[in-house]
């Protein structure tokens, strides 16, 4: 009985859709960075929608053709716009998005440093 249960669990595990493809880490990495345009807040990796399945087929083909991740993202961006990728490409339209966190961190660091220095200065006086 136990053996039958184990065989059944292994069968269910192996027959899960997408198991064979998504087990390849390079494909999974690409799928995770692609937004499913017809789903609510899901990546292509998470979705089993018709659109996500087709995108997976195309990405798999392009990986087999030897295309790099960057080339695959560029191709899909040319077809669907930048919205298709979760990690946007750095350009003049979104440079603030990339630069602002570092700028805030830098300015915040200086701000905290000045406060600490002022507090210490006041204590010594």
């Amino acid at each position: 009985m136990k053996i039958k249960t184990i065989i059944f669990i292994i069968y269910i595990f192996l027959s899960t859709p997408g198991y064979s493809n998504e087990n390849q880490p390079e494909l999974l990495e690409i799928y995770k960075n692609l937004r499913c345009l017809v789903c609510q807040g899901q990546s292509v990796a998470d979705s089993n929608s018709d659109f996500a399945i087709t995108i997976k087929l195309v990405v798999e083909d392009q990986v087999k053709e030897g295309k790099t991740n960057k080339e695959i993202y560029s191709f899909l961006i040319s077809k669907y716009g930048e919205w298709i990728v979760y990690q946007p490409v750095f350009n003049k339209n979104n440079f603030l998005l990339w630069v602002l966190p570092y700028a805030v961190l830098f300015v915040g660091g200086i701000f905290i440093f000045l406060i600490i220095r002022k507090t210490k200065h006041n204590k010594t006086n």
Partner: protein
Amino acid sequence: MKINITQIIIFCFIIFSLLIFWQGLKKDNNYDTKNLTGTRISNFQLSEINDDDKYISEEDLKKNSYTLINFFASWCAPCRSEHKYLINLSSKKNKIQIIGINFKDKKNNANNFLKELGNPYNFVGKDTNGKISILFGIYGIPESILVNNNLTVIKKIVGPLDQIQYNEILNIIR
């Protein structure tokens, strides 16, 4: 009154956050690709639905001033509602050619669909696994793309054609 710099920074930060929040509320969150015009379509090869030996490629689109590429399927209800506009457009064959791409469908069902509603297409191709649709930036059907003879996308119609879009196409090809 002495103005504290910390208070100014906090005040500016709150105003900035509220502005971002306000802009976010006003923004339409439903993304579609209808504004992605001006791009060139990729090279493709499309087999005829009933004959694998017949096919068209991007070179065939250069022969006409305008080509409307329409993705349809027999199982797609909105495709039925837009079909009358495609039939009307097919009467302007000297100005526009219409390519139908049958999307993830059964051959017999697609043929019956065209027999029942009429065939407005100059060529009916098949996209059995959906890969062709990705070359055209399609993410749901029906969708139509109007391209000129330079293979540049002039107009994208996401969803079924309606009277307004039909008139817009007529204005473009006039």
